[in-house]
């Protein structure tokens, strides 16, 4: 199917074509109706003449001399002004009207009472129509004295013609009028249709112009939904919904980039200040080498930046689905013990409660991602717990074959109002990022990893305890 180059042009062309076709059909119908009406009228006139002439035809008495020649003498005078001819049954002309002169009309014997009509060319070369009628003429015979029924005279045959020049002219004028009107109407229709199409197209044009004004930095703009044709409303609504999603994505992306920039800028400043000072010291005091403290600090800054980049990359990979999930069967209790052993703290005690049944210890999921989740949850709990408080980890079976992992701690300063933002990248209760160990990305990473292994993660506050609950399903071996 050929795609239209312009909907407007296509619409214009279709409408124009349809209207012209309709007009042509209408014109033909009108022409035929008029033609039919004229023909019928002409035929009626011809029939009427034939009947009138037949009515007035008298047969002279049988014994009258020259009987054959006198037939039709009784015609009124007007007969002579018509084109008519009376034939005997044998086809011999009995009488010819004066208007016909030396010319003849066709002869037909009509057996019933019908009046056949034919088109002919009149003697003067113009078109005409001839009608035929066969009848028994009235007789002037006297009644026989024996009262016998007199025998029927022979039938006679009348041919009467009329010119149809006027009718033809009328039809020609009608045809010409319809054609001229058609041309004029075509031009008028073209402009009217064009105007109407342009008018109907205005909302689309307006939307296109509005859409063109939306720049990448103006994603908050929306197309107006009021006073729109019903055909465009769903399209505009969909477009606005798309813009909503696009804007949200842009804002999120911009915020994420801004946060990355922010997180990188501080250590960069630290590094620049550290090296700037070290160089100034070298220039002033001229020692042979930089003090080890400078190397240690520089190394610490680099490690921090490296960790930041690693976590950001991990989140980005998880978000874009590039983190491959390869399920294996393992005991999450052992993974938890491993994780805790690497994050032990003297100030904070970590307890593990395992409520799973013996023999039902394994789960099939991605162990690396699962370990990452545990590592971040436990590390987060250790970092943000009050001193000398305890962290409780609980392992259980959830609904179906799911594994339930719950970790609760006493947070330093998390309130109910913070729960909604807690897994937002870079969000920290203390926005100053004074603690170099915290990046504000741990729970965000947990969120992404949980999504990848189809687990549900929930953060809540219960009796001043911050509780993170993970419900991970078995992913199967494939």
């Amino acid at each position, binding site marked *: 199917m050929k795609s239209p180059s312009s909907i407007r042009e296509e619409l214009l062309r279709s409408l124009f074509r349809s209207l012209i076709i309709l007009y042509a059909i209408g014109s033909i119908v009108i022409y035929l109706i008029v033609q039919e009406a004229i023909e019928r009228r002409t035929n009626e006139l011809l029939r009427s003449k034939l009947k009138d002439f037949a009515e007035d035809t008298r047969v002279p008495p049988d014994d009258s001399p020259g009987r054959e020649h006198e037939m039709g003498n009784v015609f009124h005078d007007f007969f002579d002004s018509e084109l008519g001819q009376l034939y005997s049954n044998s086809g011999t002309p009995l009488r010819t009207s004066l208007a016909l002169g030396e010319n003849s009309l066709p002869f037909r014997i009509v057996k019933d009472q019908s009046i056949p009509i034919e088109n002919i060319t009149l003697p003067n070369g113009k078109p005409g129509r001839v009608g035929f009628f066969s009848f028994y003429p009235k007789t002037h015979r006297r009644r026989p004295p024996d009262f016998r029924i007199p025998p029927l005279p022979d039938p006679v045959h009348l041919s009467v013609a009329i010119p149809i020049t006027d009718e033809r002219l009328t039809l020609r004028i009608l045809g010409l009028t319809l054609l001229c009107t058609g041309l004029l109407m075509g031009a008028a229709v073209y402009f009217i249709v064009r105007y109407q199409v342009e008018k109907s197209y205005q909302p689309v044009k307006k939307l296109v112009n509005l859409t063109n004004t939306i720049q990448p930095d103006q994603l908050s703009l929306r197309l107006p939904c009021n006073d729109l044709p019903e055909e465009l409303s769903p399209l505009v609504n969909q477009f606005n919904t798309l813009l909503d999603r696009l804007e949200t994505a842009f804002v999120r992306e911009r915020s994420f980039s801004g946060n990355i920039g922010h997180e990188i800028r*501080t250590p*960069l*400043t630290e590094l*620049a*200040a550290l090296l700037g000072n070290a160089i100034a010291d070298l220039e002033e005091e001229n020692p042979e080498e930089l003090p080890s403290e400078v190397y240690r600090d520089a190394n610490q800054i680099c490690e921090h930046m490296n960790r930041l980049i690693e976590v950001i990359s991990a989140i980005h990979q998880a978000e874009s689905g590039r983190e491959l999930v390869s399920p294996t069967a393992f005991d999450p209790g052992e993974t938890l013990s491993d994780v805790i052993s690497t994050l032990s703290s003297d100030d904070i005690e970590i307890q593990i409660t395992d409520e799973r049944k013996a023999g039902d210890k394994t789960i099939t999921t991605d162990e690396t991602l699962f370990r990452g989740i545990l590592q971040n949850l436990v590390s987060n709990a250790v970092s943000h717990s009050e001193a000398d408080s305890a962290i409780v980890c609980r392992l259980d079976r959830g609904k179906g074959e799911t594994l339930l992992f719950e970790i609760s701690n006493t947070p330093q300063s998390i309130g109910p109002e913070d729960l909604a933002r807690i897994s937002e990248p870079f969000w920290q209760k203390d926005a*100053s990022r*004074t603690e170099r160990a915290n990046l504000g990305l741990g729970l965000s990473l947990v969120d992404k990893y949980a999504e990848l292994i189809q687990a549900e993660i929930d953060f809540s506050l219960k009796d001043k305890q911050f509780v993170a609950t993970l419900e991970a399903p078995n992913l199967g071996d494939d």
Partner: protein
Amino acid sequence: MRILYVEDSQLLRKNVTSALKRAGFAVDTAADGEEGLNLALTGSYDVMILDVMLPKVDGLTILAQIRKAEIDSAVLMLSARVTTADRVQGLNLGADDYLVKPFQLEELIARVHALNRRRYGLNGNHVEIGKLSVDLNAQRAFVDEVEISLRPREFEILQYLVCRSGSVVSRSEILEHVYDQAADLKSNAIDVAICTARKKLSEAGSDANIRTIPRRGYLIESESSPSVAP
């Protein structure tokens, strides 16, 4: 010149403070917003350098508080936030300058010098009183293009007096603007430093003299055009 620097990053605080001190500024530091706000409200600082994101009280709140208390110290905001909106917000709250991280120490020091100049109505980094010429950036003083050998403290006092030339500067003002909190100050330290500086100026042939105005303080002026009657 005395500076308050509020920064939560210990490493940055240490290195920037060191650079500022090297540039001849007396620097007090605070590691969080609460401590910074206390110092800002109680101390007398020529310039305050405030990080925006601080624990306890953020830099913008400190700025709003000190402007509310009608403290006219010049304020330089430091932030890793780069958007125009962030900068406009800081400047609208009364900051005199806004520096985005990462920055070079030279730029920070240059901006602090600029803020100082603006504060004391100076047109450039060189201030001249008679034959005496003081280069505020290079931390050097000259008489007839010959450098005078001054100890750091002597130069800092001379610098402050030069910046305030034409005005009598009290001992307490010198104390507040030249010495930081950590300075081990003896009771006659200012008098001794001024006496030494005066002597060095005189030996170098300077016509600028540090006069003692009884019960009021000190005044530096050119002998050829004294500005304040004793």
